């Protein structure tokens, strides 16, 4: 960075500072542009990956037989799956946020495979199973950690991607400093066509930039949080206030005279507990015990839509043995646990996903437009500099400043 300092000559301190800011702005993301572009693009696709699957695969759509059709309860869904494949073991049922999606029921099959079964939420009809290629998971893995395996803690890809939050944040701040009186851009938006590519992309870069201030800020900060999260995880530093994980006591799981599993609490009963303990909760996820000492877990979103609330029901006696509400979280946890939903925008429904998708596209285009401006300008500037070098050695500041001030 110190290489920039010579520009700040005592003769013109203000102009020098502007030039410095401008240089920092161009350095922050430019050398990384191809990686930044890739991550922004894959992230943009990831925001709507579920919807892309919806468009591509009719089995994940929820078709209501009639306008007044009633949604099935969890026990009815369980029964429907058990009827269709009696040997499979249901592990969880999830109800997507949006009513236009089928229920996704996770099962373990006798051949050792596991899969998701798409179940019509109104009729219980089995509409299909998830394909072996999980598009949504793939896009997430590509965007989030470059498909690298997690062998020992967080991988290099995770760190590399999340650290991009830093140049993004620097780009935003320096961009706003360099773009003098940027708020005027809100009042008098300018996007000039027909003045050549350089002018158009310059206008676009500034216009998209100022309208994306909150979005870029959110993505950069939440992105950097993922770095912090990885560091904490890899150093085994816990900020959790949860305490010991809930496990069913040995004496609660009875031995049976016939040597077969006892009946357990019904899922609807467990879900009813959820609304009792967590009023306003929309149960979106129910998981069945993963072994004899595991709870039935009901989870969903409550009044604060970003976070999940959940409760653990003892499968043998129906007692609620653990509740994790929004109110149980520390202020720090509220903040840190809000980071991921803020990054993905998946907590409010389709409209927010589309907003994220749109701004994601803008951000992706800003990487490209920044690059285009740089290539065009640098070619100019270098030519100009070479010319000037022959005439007077001191005149480069003014030109750069106007570039930045546009």
């Amino acid at each position, binding site marked *: 960075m110190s*290489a920039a300092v010579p520009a700040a000559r005592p003769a013109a301190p203000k102009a020098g500072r502007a030039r410095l800011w401008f240089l920092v702005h161009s*350095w922050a993301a*430019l*050398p*990384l*542009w*191809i*990686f*930044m572009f*890739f991550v922004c693009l894959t992230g943009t696709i990831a925001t709507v990956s579920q919807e892309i699957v919806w468009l591509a695969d009719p089995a994940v759509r929820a078709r209501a037989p009639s306008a007044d059709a009633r949604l099935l309860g969890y026990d009815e869904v369980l029964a429907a799956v058990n009827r269709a494949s009696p040997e499979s*073991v249901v*592990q969880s049922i999830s109800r997507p946020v949006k009513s236009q999606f089928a229920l996704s029921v996770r*099962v*373990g*099959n*006798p*051949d*050792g*495979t*596991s*899969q998701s079964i798409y179940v019509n939420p109104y009729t219980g009809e089995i509409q299909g199973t998830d394909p*072996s*290629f*999980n598009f949504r*998971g*793939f896009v997430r*893995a*590509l965007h989030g950690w*470059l*498909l*690298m*395996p997690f*062998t*020992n*803690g967080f991988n290099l*890809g995770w760190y*590399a991607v999340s650290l991009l939050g830093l140049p993004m944040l620097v780009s935003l701040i320096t961009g706003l400093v360099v773009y003098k009186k940027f708020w005027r851009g809100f009042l008098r938006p300018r996007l000039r066509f027909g003045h050549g590519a350089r002018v158009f992309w310059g206008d676009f870069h500034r216009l998209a930039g100022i309208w994306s201030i909150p979005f870029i800020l959110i993505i950069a900060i939440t992105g950097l949080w993922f770095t912090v999260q990885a560091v904490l*995880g890899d150093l*085994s530093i816990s900020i959790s206030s949860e305490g010991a994980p809930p496990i069913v006591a*040995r004496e609660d*799981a009875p*031995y*049976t*005279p*016939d*040597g*077969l*599993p*006892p009946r357990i609490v019904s899922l609807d009963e467990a879900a009813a507990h959820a609304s009792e303990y967590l009023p306003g909760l929309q149960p979106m996820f129910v998981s069945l015990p*993963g*072994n*004899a*000492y*595991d709870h039935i877990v009901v989870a969903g979103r409550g009044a604060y839509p970003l976070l999940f609330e959940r409760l653990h029901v003892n499968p043998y006696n129906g007692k609620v043995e653990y509740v994790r509400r929004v109110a149980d979280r520390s202020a720090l946890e509220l903040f840190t646990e809000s980071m991921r939903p803020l990054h993905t925008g998946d907590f409010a429904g389709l409209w927010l996903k589309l907003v994220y998708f749109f701004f994601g596209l803008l951000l992706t285009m800003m990487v490209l437009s920044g690059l285009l401006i740089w290539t065009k300008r*640098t*070619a100019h*500037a*270098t*030519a100009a500099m*070479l010319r000037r070098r022959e005439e007077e050695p001191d005149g480069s500041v003014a030109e750069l400043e106007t570039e930045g001030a546009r």
Partner: protein
Amino acid sequence: MSTARSPSTRRAGVPAWKRWLFRVSAVFVVLPLFYLPAYFHSQELNRGTKGLGERELGEIAVGPWSVRFAEWRVEQPFRNGEAGYAKSFTLALCDTCAKQVKAAYLRVGKPRNLRAAGSIFFGSPYRQSVALPIPERVTADAELWITLEGWDGSVHQAALPLAEASPITIEWLSKRGNPT
């Protein structure tokens, strides 16, 4: 793709560190291609279409029951935070005992009793897994003990040499200087 295609005049304006940064960032974009096969292998392993694990050990009799047992990944033990190192194993209960077995546990060394039977398996009767802590003091002749607890209260056990269950773990232990 490369700044190198630009004319030499512009090249002069781009410092070496920036060009290196660019190259490194371009490598990150290409890297996923390199990891693609491993990614799909993991997906298939998670889905169970590649069998119980990367290395299946076949049927092991545990009292009147039996399990199919597998090393989840043929990899060295992984770092499990504060809990030290761990290795994942999977098992499938026999068709006839799937409903009779209440819980399956795994431990390095013979357990003193059911309460100390070790780490519990999690999953369906057809495929359940455990991340077994591998303590530093484990020796190459150590045995893995499988404990099955029945819904009728019966407890059955079987042992298999760690060297058989995971040769790579033995290799790893000897590299760490543990007595063999």
